[in-house]
C-alpha cells in the first residue's frame, strides 16, 4: 500500500484539505459535545474540529453507516469511522443502498469502544485515546468496553479507501484503493510504499477476541432463547439502528410476519393461548436470518435495546456461524459477492439434512 506518516496534529490539515481540494463535498466525522462524542456532517472546512482528539475516541453511539444508508446521491461524502462502521458501509454498497462512487471511506484504528453514555460518564479517566493496556486497567476499575468490542477481531484499520493507523506515537495514513491514493495525492501528501499490515498485532487481537467469545454465555436451546428474549417488548429498535437492515418495508410490519386482529385470534384458537405482543421468537429468528451474512458485529442492536437484552450474544454470534460456512467476512471486499446472490454448483450438501 502507498502512504505516509503524519503527526497527530497534521490530521486536521489533511481532513480540511479533502474538502478544500474538492476531493469530497462533505465529511461525516466524530465531534465532541461536552464529554460526549457523536457524529457531524461537515460541508464548511473550518467547522472541522482537531481530529486527533475525537476520531480515536473510544465511544460508540450510532453506527455511522446507518446515517448514510440509502443516500443515493451524486455528491461525494467522506466518512471517518471505525472499522465496523466502514465494513457496514461496504455491505450497504453491495446491497445497492449506496453508490460506491459517492463515498470516500476513511477507516481509523479502534481499540475497542465504550457505550457512549459510559464514555461520557468516565471521560476524565478514559480520555481521548486508549490502548489495550489502558483498557485492561479501566476494566479493573469496573469500566468495561462493549461486549461487541471485546469479541471484535477486526479492530485495526485495513479496509476502505484510506486508513488512519496509530503507530509509534504517530499516525500512518495510507490509500488502499485507487480512489484513496488519488485523494491522498490531491491534498498534497507525498506517498511512499508503506507497510501497515501489522500482522502480529492482528494475531494478538484475534486470539484475545476468540477467547472472550468463548467466555460469553451461550444460548443453546429453545428454552434458553425464550428466557433470553423474555423481556423483549418488540420495539424493533434493534432493527432500526442496524446498519445492514435496509428493507423499505420490514417483514415484521406486514401481516405475514406479524399477524394481528383476526389472524391472531385464529392462531390463538389453534394454540389455545398465545403470548401478546406476539411473535418475539419469530421476529428475532427471522431477523437474524436476514442479517446473517451481512452482520458486521458492531453491537448497535445491544446498545439500542431499551430492556438491556445483551443482543451481542445473539446476532453477531449466530451470524458468525453462518459467515463461516460461506467463508465470508462482511466488509472485507466490495467486489466479493454477497453469499445469497451467488452459488457453487457443488456445495453444502452435508448441511441440508
Amino acid at each position, binding site marked *: 500500500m502507498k502512504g505516509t506518516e503524519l503527526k497527530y496534529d497534521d490530521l486536521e490539515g489533511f481532513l480540511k484539505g479533502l474538502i478544500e481540494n474538492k476531493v469530497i463535498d462533505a465529511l461525516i466525522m466524530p465531534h465532541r459535545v461536552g464529554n460526549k462524542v457523536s457524529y457531524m456532517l461537515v460541508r464548511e472546512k473550518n467547522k472541522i474540529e482537531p481530529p486527533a482528539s475525537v476520531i480515536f475516541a473510544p465511544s460508540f453511539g450510532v453506527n455511522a453507516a446507518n446515517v448514510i444508508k440509502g443516500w443515493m446521491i451524486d455528491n461525494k461524502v467522506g466518512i471517518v469511522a471505525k472499522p465496523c462502521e466502514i465494513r457496514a458501509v461496504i455491505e450497504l454498497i453491495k446491497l445497492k443502498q449506496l453508490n460506491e462512487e459517492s463515498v470516500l471511506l476513511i477507516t481509523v484504528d479502534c481499540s475497542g469502544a465504550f457505550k457512549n453514555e459510559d464514555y461520557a460518564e468516565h471521560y476524565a479517566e478514559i480520555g481521548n485515546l486508549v490502548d489495550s493496556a489502558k483498557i485492561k486497567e479501566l476494566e479493573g476499575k469496573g469500566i468495561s468496553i462493549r461486549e461487541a468490542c471485546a469479541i471484535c477481531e477486526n479492530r485495526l484499520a485495513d479496509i476502505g479507501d484510506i486508513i488512519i493507523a496509530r503507530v509509534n506515537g504517530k499516525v500512518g495514513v495510507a490509500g488502499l484503493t485507487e480512489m484513496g491514493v488519488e485523494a491522498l495525492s490531491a491534498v498534497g501528501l507525498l506517498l511512499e510504499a508503506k507497510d501497515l499490515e501489522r500482522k502480529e498485532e492482528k494475531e494478538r487481537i484475534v486470539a484475545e477476541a476468540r477467547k472472550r467469545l468463548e467466555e460469553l454465555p451461550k*444460548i*443453546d*436451546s*429453545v*428454552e*434458553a*432463547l*425464550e428466557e433470553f428474549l423474555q423481556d423483549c417488548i418488540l420495539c424493533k429498535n434493534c432493527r432500526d439502528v442496524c446498519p445492514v437492515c435496509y428493507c423499505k418495508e420490514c*417483514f415484521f410490519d406486514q401481516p*405475514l*410476519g406479524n399477524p394481528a386482529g383476526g389472524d391472531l385470534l385464529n*392462531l390463538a384458537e*389453534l*394454540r*389455545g*393461548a*398465545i*403470548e401478546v405482543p406476539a*411473535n*418475539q*421468537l*419469530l421476529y428475532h*429468528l*427471522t431477523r*437474524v*436470518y436476514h442479517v*446473517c*451474512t451481512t452482520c458486521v458485529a458492531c453491537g448497535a442492536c445491544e446498545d439500542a435495546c431499551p430492556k438491556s437484552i445483551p443482543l451481542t450474544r445473539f446476532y453477531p454470534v*449466530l451470524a458468525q*456461524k*453462518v459467515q463461516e*460456512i*460461506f467463508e465470508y467476512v462482511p466488509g472485507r471486499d466490495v467486489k466479493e459477492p454477497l*453469499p*445469497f*446472490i451467488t*452459488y457453487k*454448483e*457443488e*456445495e*453444502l*450438501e452435508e*448441511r*441440508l*439434512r
Partner: protein
Amino acid sequence: MEEEKGGFEPKIIGFTCNWCTYAGADLAGTSRKKYPPNIRLIRLMCSGRIDPMFVLKALLNGADGVFLGGCHPGECHYIKGNFYARRRIAALRTILKQFGLDNRVRSEWCSASEGDKFARIMKEMAEEIKQLGPNPMRDKIL
C-alpha cells in the same frame, strides 16, 4: 389426547417445488406407494421460493418437522432456483442448530420420476421425527 395414548404422530409440513418433488409425490401416489400420512405438502413453483420465514413460522407454530423439496441441483426448471435455495437452507439450518432445532428440518432433492425415493424419504422422516418426539414449541404459550 388420543395421540398420547396411541403413540405420537408427528405433523410435518412440506414445501415442495411444482416441477420435481411435488410431481414425485404425485407419482408416489399414482403408483400406490405407501408412506406415512404425517406430511402436509404445500406446493410452491420453485424451491427458490422457500422463504426461511415459512420454516420458522411452521416450527414456532408447532410443526414437528419441516420438509423442503426441490429438483436435483443442475436440474431446476428455472435453471438455478435450487442453488440459491440450498444456500438459504444451509444458513437457516446453521442458525437452528444452535437451538437444537436443525434436525427437524430436512431437505432433499427428488425428481418427478422418483416416486420411490419420495415415499422412502417420507418413511424415514416420519420415523426420525417420532424418535425426536413432539416439537417443544407445540404446547407453549408464545
